[in-house]
């Protein structure tokens, strides 16, 4: 995995960014609490919540038994009553045993109650493949939770975005699925201005370019930036757009870019069919139809459950080389 450019000034890790966001919001609002497996005494399986138990005590940093459906449902009930739970899934893979709670309770209770119930709850944890974790532990879930109205989806790539978006998510009055990445926890990036809130629903152009729009989200941003850098050397200027949130989705920023570059590649982790990426490609193909000089192309994971062997895992995951090839293809360059 590639890492972002060396930051100029003060830096912090993605992990610290998340921790700061939680700590600041917990300090600000005592209705906020954190519940999940190992979040307290163990400081989180990935050490994201280090120090929070010590700071906020057992009442607000709560170690849960292995009962995702139970504690996700518990957090939903607590949110109904006006608390503001942060419900951590050790990884999003384990959210599948809480699937009904998330999509049939959290995403639907407000509608079913005719707007009487408000659900200020954040579900968070790492999603996507890490390294050699095998078929059951490598799910990119953006296509799953991005499917259902009633639950917002944020998927930050940089530490600054992670902090600003998590703070917004915690203040949000709707359920938010907050998708992190195990492989990003250790990366460093520029710190955020004090108190910064990054609103849900605003994409960011992470690199400007005029030849092709490359839209992505989450960890794939760094794959996109690496590909963009490589293509620079070949005279192709790629505009990299980081969607940052999938629901709401910032269509305007993306479409404006494609209408300028006339080409678009969608890059995402995870399976191909019924994917969020396919929806984005369809959106662009339809809304920028008259502007496109080439079909919208996608780079995603192969349509295979993730095997353990590292060579197969590499073959399955999107990487910069695959993105470079896709961009060249839509630009009708040799080797594309």
């Amino acid at each position, binding site marked *: 995995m590639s890492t972002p450019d060396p930051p100029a000034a003060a830096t912090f890790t993605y992990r610290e960014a998340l921790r700061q966001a939680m700590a600041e919001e917990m300090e600000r609002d005592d209705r906020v609490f954190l519940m999940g497996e190992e979040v307290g005494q163990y400081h989180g399986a990935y050490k994201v919540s280090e120090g929070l138990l010590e700071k906020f005590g057992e009442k607000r940093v709560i170690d849960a*038994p292995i009962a995702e*459906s139970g504690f996700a*449902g518990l957090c939903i009930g607590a949110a109904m009553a006006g*608390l503001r739970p942060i419900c951590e899934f050790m990884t999003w893979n384990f959210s599948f045993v809480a699937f*009904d*709670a998330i999509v049939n309770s959290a995403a639907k209770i*407000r509608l079913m109650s*005719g707007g009487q119930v408000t659900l200020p709850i954040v579900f968070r944890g790492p999603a996507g493949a890490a390294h050699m974790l095998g078929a059951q532990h490598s799910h990119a879930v953006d296509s799953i939770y991005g499917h259902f109205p009633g639950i917002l989806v944020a998927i930050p790539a940089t530490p600054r975005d992670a902090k600003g978006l998590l703070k917004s998510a915690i203040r949000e*009055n709707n359920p938010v699925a907050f998708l992190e990445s195990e492989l990003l926890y250790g990366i460093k990036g520029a710190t955020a201005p004090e108190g910064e809130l990054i609103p849900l629903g605003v994409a960011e152009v992470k690199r400007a370019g005029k030849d092709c729009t490359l839209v992505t989200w989450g960890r794939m941003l760094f794959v996109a930036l690496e590909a963009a850098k490589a293509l620079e050397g070949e005279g192709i200027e790629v505009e990299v757009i980081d969607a940052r949130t999938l629901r709401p989705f910032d269509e305007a920023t993306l479409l404006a870019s494609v209408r300028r570059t006339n080409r678009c590649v969608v890059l995402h982790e995870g399976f191909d069919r019924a994917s969020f990426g396919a929806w984005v490609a369809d959106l662009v193909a339809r809304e920028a139809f008259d502007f496109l000089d080439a079909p919208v192309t996608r780079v995603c994971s192969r349509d295979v459950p993730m095997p353990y062997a590292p060579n197969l895992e590499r073959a399955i995951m999107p990487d910069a080389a695959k993105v470079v090839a896709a961009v060249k293809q839509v630009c009708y360059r040799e080797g594309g």
Partner: protein
Amino acid sequence: MSADPKTAKVRPVAKADAARRELLMGLYRQMVTIRRFEEQAAKAYTQGKIGGFLHLSIGQEAVAVGTMAALRADDDVVASYREHAHAIARGTPLTAVMAELFGKATGCSKGRGGSMHLFDVARHFWGGYGIVGGHLPLAVGLAFAAHYRGEPRIAACFFGEGAASIGEFHEALSLAALWKLPVLFVCENNFYAMGTSIWRSLSIEDVTAKALAYGIERDRFDADDVLVVHDRVAAAVEKIRGGGGPALIEMRTYRFRGHSMADPAKYRTKEEVDAWKVRDAIPGARKRLAEMGAAETDLAALEEACEVAVAEAVRFAAESPEPPPGEVDAHVYA
């Protein structure tokens, strides 16, 4: 010791008797209201005025009514899809409930929920839910919130015996027990989950045997006497509110009709149904009231009033407007 044993003994007893009769009169009124309400809902359903699934609890009213009376107004309540009785016993206006069944804008869930998803948050009625077991963890969460805030509220959660087989039941009871949360789990054992009897779904017919796995309080009784329901629940609630942790109560009861309007309920013998009808809590309460000295005229007037109120609810629902089509996207996000 009082000087005059007669007054000292008799007067409090008389007072208690009167209070008891008042209590029962209120419970009786609620049960009759619910019975009439559901009969009219069934009629409206056959007339096509109500759609989707309609689950009646005719025969089971004593559970909701007796339990709700033992709760405080700010205790939190969550129920399954068979929850007309619970909403009404909680105090949700008949008009708002019937309008919801009719899918009208004036419904207690603004026409979004229907029969299975009645909500009345002002009365701490946090909804009816359609996925068996899915609402148990929500109740634990409501109790968690009370506990978190140091408020003396408890959460009561109603579900059928069919829910005892599902994972969410286990996880909810397990978490509530572990953290000693103030939850009253009320299992309405009507012996059937659709067409599957409890003898075909559980290896041990006693649902409260599950409590042994968590070490929580349990109780088990027949819900054919609404006062018994009230008293046993009141005792359990007191312990829960006192910090004793959750309790699981199994109330044996019976639905006189099918699972939903679509179900002719052929899986039960007429004898079985009839035997339970004999134990119907509504005539039972009426008889008891008469014994307690309630006047026949008062009872008749009460029953008449219930019918009038239900008729008014039907009229209100019929005349209410549909949700504005322009608001089709409303109420999804805060």
